[in-house]
C-alpha cells in the first residue's frame, strides 16, 4: 500500500455554515481551500454565485460535494458542522482518511450516543462513556490521531467583516497547533495554542448554555448587573462541569473560556443568545428553532449536561433551571425568582 505524497497543499473545510465559510475565507488568504457542501444543489448554487448567503467566497476556494475529494486532496481538514451531524459526517469521511491527516474541528457541541440495547438507569447513568467531545468522536471513528480544535470568541459576522479577533487552537500535538497557527494567523487574527484539548473544547460547548441564560436576562429587560451576575456565576458552573468531564480550570480562564463566554453572552449575533432572548419574549422553543437557519448548540448541550451533572453529583443551578424552562416545567419568570433564592456560600472555590 503506498501513501499519497501531498505536494499540493490545499486545505479542506467541511461545512458551509456561517463559521465554516468565515474560516474558509480566512484560510484562503494564505492557501487554496476546498470547501465541502453536503447538498449538491446548494453546492452548485454557491459555486455559481461565488457566495454563501451574504458571505462572498474568496477566489481561492473551490467547492465540492464529494467527501472523498476532501480526504484525497487535503492533508489538513477543518470540520465545522453542527454536533448533531458530526458523527455521521466523520463516519462518512473516515474511509477517506489516513493516519497522516490533521483534523482541526470548530464545532462547539457534544455528541451523545447510547449503544443499541443499552438502557440508561440508576446503575448505568449517563456518563462520559456516552457523551463525547468532537475530538473524541474523530478519534473513535477514524484512524486520525493528530486532532485539534479551534475555539475562542469567533462571531462569524465580525470575522467576515475583518475585525480584529483571536482564537485558540488546542491539541495534544504541537505540530497541529503550529499548523493551525501558520494557516490562520494574520495581522488582525491572533492564534494562541493550548494542549488542554478537552478543556478548550468544553469551554466552547458550555458557554452556549450560559449564552442562552443571558439572552433570557436581556429578553426580560433586566440590566447589566443581572447579566454580569449570570455570566460570572455561569463561569463558575462551567469550571465545575469542565473539571468533572476532564478539562483543567486554566482553560476556562483564558480566551476560549472567559473570552468566548463574554463575547457570546453580550452579542445579539449569537444564536444561543437569541434563543434565550426570544424565549423570554414569550416565543416557544419549537417556533424559535423552526425559524432559525442554523442550530443553536446550547439547547442540546443543556439537556446533556443536566443529566450528566446528576450522575456526577455536581451542582449546576443555571443549567438545571434552563432545562426546566426548555422542558416547559418552569416559566422564565419563575426561573428568575428561583435563581435569586438559590443559596451560594462562597463565590469562587475552585482555585
Amino acid at each position, binding site marked *: 500500500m503506498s501513501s499519497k505524497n501531498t505536494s499540493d497543499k490545499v486545505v479542506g473545510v467541511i461545512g458551509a455554515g456561517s463559521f465554516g465559510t468565515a474560516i474558509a475565507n480566512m484560510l484562503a488568504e494564505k492557501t487554496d481551500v476546498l470547501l465541502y457542501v453536503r447538498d449538491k444543489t446548494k453546492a452548485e448554487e454557491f459555486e455559481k454565485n461565488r457566495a454563501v448567503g451574504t458571505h462572498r467566497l474568496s477566489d481561492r476556494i473551490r467547492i465540492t460535494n464529494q467527501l472523498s475529494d476532501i480526504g484525497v486532496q487535503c492533508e489538513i481538514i477543518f470540520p465545522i458542522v453542527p454536533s448533531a451531524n458530526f458523527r455521521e459526517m466523520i463516519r462518512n469521511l473516515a474511509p477517506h482518511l489516513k*493516519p497522516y491527516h490533521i483534523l482541526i474541528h470548530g464545532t462547539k457541541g457534544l455528541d451523545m450516543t447510547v449503544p443499541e440495547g443499552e438502557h440508561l438507569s440508576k446503575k448505568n447513568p449517563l456518563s462520559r462513556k456516552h457523551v463525547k467531545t468532537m475530538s473524541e468522536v474523530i478519534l473513535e471513528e477514524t484512524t486520525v490521531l493528530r486532532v485539534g480544535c479551534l475555539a475562542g470568541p469567533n462571531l462569524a459576522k465580525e470575522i467576515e467583516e475583518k475585525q480584529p479577533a483571536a482564537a485558540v487552537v488546542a491539541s495534544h500535538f504541537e505540530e497541529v497547533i503550529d499548523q493551525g497557527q501558520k494557516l490562520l494567523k494574520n495581522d488582525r487574527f491572533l492564534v494562541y495554542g493550548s494542549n488542554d484539548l478537552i478543556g478548550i473544547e468544553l469551554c466552547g460547548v458550555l458557554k452556549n448554555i450560559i449564552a442562552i441564560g443571558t439572552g433570557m436576562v436581556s429578553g426580560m429587560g433586566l440590566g447589566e448587573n443581572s447579566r454580569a451576575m449570570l455570566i460570572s456565576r455561569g463561569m463558575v458552573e462551567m469550571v465545575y462541569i469542565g473539571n468533572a468531564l476532564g478539562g483543567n480550570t486554566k482553560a476556562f480562564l483564558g480566551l476560549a473560556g472567559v473570552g468566548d463566554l463574554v463575547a457570546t453572552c453580550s452579542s445579539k449575533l449569537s444564536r444561543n443568545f437569541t434563543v434565550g432572548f426570544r424565549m423570554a419574549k414569550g416565543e416557544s422553543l419549537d417556533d424559535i428553532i423552526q425559524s432559525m437557519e442554523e442550530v443553536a448548540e446550547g439547547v442540546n448541550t443543556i439537556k446533556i449536561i443536566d443529566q450528566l451533572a446528576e450522575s456526577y453529583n455536581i451542582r449546576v443551578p443555571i443549567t438545571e433551571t434552563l432545562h426546566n424552562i426548555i422542558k416547559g416545567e418552569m416559566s422564565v419568570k419563575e426561573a428568575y425568582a428561583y435563581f435569586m433564592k438559590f443559596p451560594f456560600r462562597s463565590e469562587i472555590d475552585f482555585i
Partner: protein
Amino acid sequence: MAKKRDEFIQLVVEESFDNMLLLKRGRTLREEIEMTAYREKQRAKNHPWKVDPKDDYSFWDGVQQRVVKLDGLGKKEQNDCLKDILREILNRYGNEIAGNFNPSHYHVARAVVTLGFGRLLNAARVKGPWSLFSNQLDLDDKIHIKGEVDQLRKLAKLGTVVMVPTHFSNIDSVLIGWIIQFLGLPPFIYGAGLNLFNLKVFSYFMNSVGAYKVDRRKKNSIYLECLKSYSTIALREGCHSLFFPGGTRSRSGRIEKALKLGLLGTTIEAQRQIFQFEENPEEKKIFIVPVTLNYHFVLEAPSLINDYLKSKGQERYYEENDEFTTSFKISTFLMKFFTKGSDISVSIGNALDVLGNEVNINGRSLDKNGNEIDLKDYFKSNGEVTEDAQREQEYNRILGKKIVQEFHKHNRVFSSHLVAFTAFRILERKHTSLDLYGLLRLSDEELILPYEEYKEGFSNLLDALRAMKDAGSVGLADHLSREKDEVIKHGIKNLGMYHAQPPLKFSKSGDVVIRNMNLLYYYHNRLDGYELEKYL
C-alpha cells in the same frame, strides 16, 4: 545484536552522544555532567550493590575533579574536554548495560539453561530426583498458555517482536524466559533490573539469555539516554525484546495502569528510524505483544503490599530486600511451587503495531473496522516521514493506554482473585464511612462474613464476569466454569496458599473468615478497574 558486542556498544555510545548534544533541557552539558557525577557519588556511597564495579566511587569522584579543573581553560578547550568526559561516561554506561552478553555463547547457554529449568520442574513434580534424567516435559496442567500463540510465532519470523508482560513477581523473568523457549520462539533480549543480578541464580539465567541491565537507581539523563539508545538500536537491528512496561513489580497487586514510557518509546522511535533509513521497512516492522501473567499467589506479596501501603501517594525509593534475597530461598520456592498444586496462566494478547493498532497474522496493521493501514502514514507530514519528538511522545502515551486496555482484556481471572475481591468489597460496602486504612484496621469479629451473604455477592460478580467474558472484555480461568460453591472453595484454598497466613479461610460453621486484610486487599486489587463493584 548478532554483531560484535563492542561494535554494538560503540554505536550506542555514538547515538546517545549525538542525542545528548541535541537535547535542550535547560541545562548546559557541564551542568548535566556535574549533576550526574554528584548523584552517582551519592548513590555509590549510600546505596551500593554487590554488582556495582569496584571503582564506582572513584570514577565519579574523578569526573567531578576533572570538571572543576576546567575553569582555567578557554571556552573551546572546555567544550572539547566536556565532550570527552561525556563520551567516557557513555562508554561506561554502555558497557554496564550490555553486561557480559556474549553472542557466540548465547545459543549454547540458552539451551543449557532452559533444559535445566525444564528438568528442575520435572524433577520437582511427582517423579522424584531421578526424573532429572527424564525427557518428559509435561507442564500443561501447571502453566496454561492461552491466546495468540500462533500469531506470536509467525510475527517473530516476519518482524521484530517486543513482548510486554505484566509484572507481579521476580519469578516473572524466569517464567517468561522459559515460555519463550517452550513456544520455540527465537531469542529475546531482556531489560532486567540490575538488582536481579545481585542474586547468583538470576544472574546466571539473565546473563545467558541475553539480558541487558537496567539500573533503576540511576535517573540521570545521560544514563537514560544511553539506555534508550541501547534499546532503540537493538530494535532497529531486529532483536526481539522483552521489557516490563510497568517498570518494577506491581506493588499494589493491580494490573499496571501507568506505564513507564521511556523504554516503550524506543519502539516508536526505532520504527520511525526504520521507515526513514531502511530500504525494506516492511520487513522490519516492530510488533508489540502484551502478555498477562496470573498466579494464585505472589511470594513477595506481603512486602510488596506493605511498601505500597506505606508509600501510597508518593514514589518511594526502590527497595531491593524482600523474600527473594538469597538464591537458596528461590530454589526452595521453585521446588515448593512445582510440587504443590498451583496454576500459572500466561495469556498472549493480540499483537499491536507501535501505534497500538491490532495487526493480523501477516503483520499488517488494521484500523477499527478491519481495514489495512499503512503504519508509515503516522510518521508523515507533507508526504515525508519526519522526526517529531513531541508527536512521538503523544504516540507513546496512546500506545501505553492501549497496552493497559489489552492487559485488562487478556487478564484471566482466577477463583482466588475473585474470592478476595468479593470479601473486600463486601466489607467496604458494610463500612462506607471508613477509608482504606480504616478498613485494614477492622477488628477480628467484623471480619467474619456469613456464607450465604458472601455467596450471593460472589454469584453476582461471577455472573457479571461471565457476561464480560462473552463480550470479550476479560478472560476467565477454566476452573471458573465450575459450580459456584466449588469455585468459592477452590478460590479460598488457593488464595495466597504459601503465605504464613492465607488471607481467607472457612470457619467451622462454614462462614468466610478474613485473616489477613493487607493481603486480601492486595489480591483483591487484581480485579480493580473493571467496575465490578456495581454488580455487588
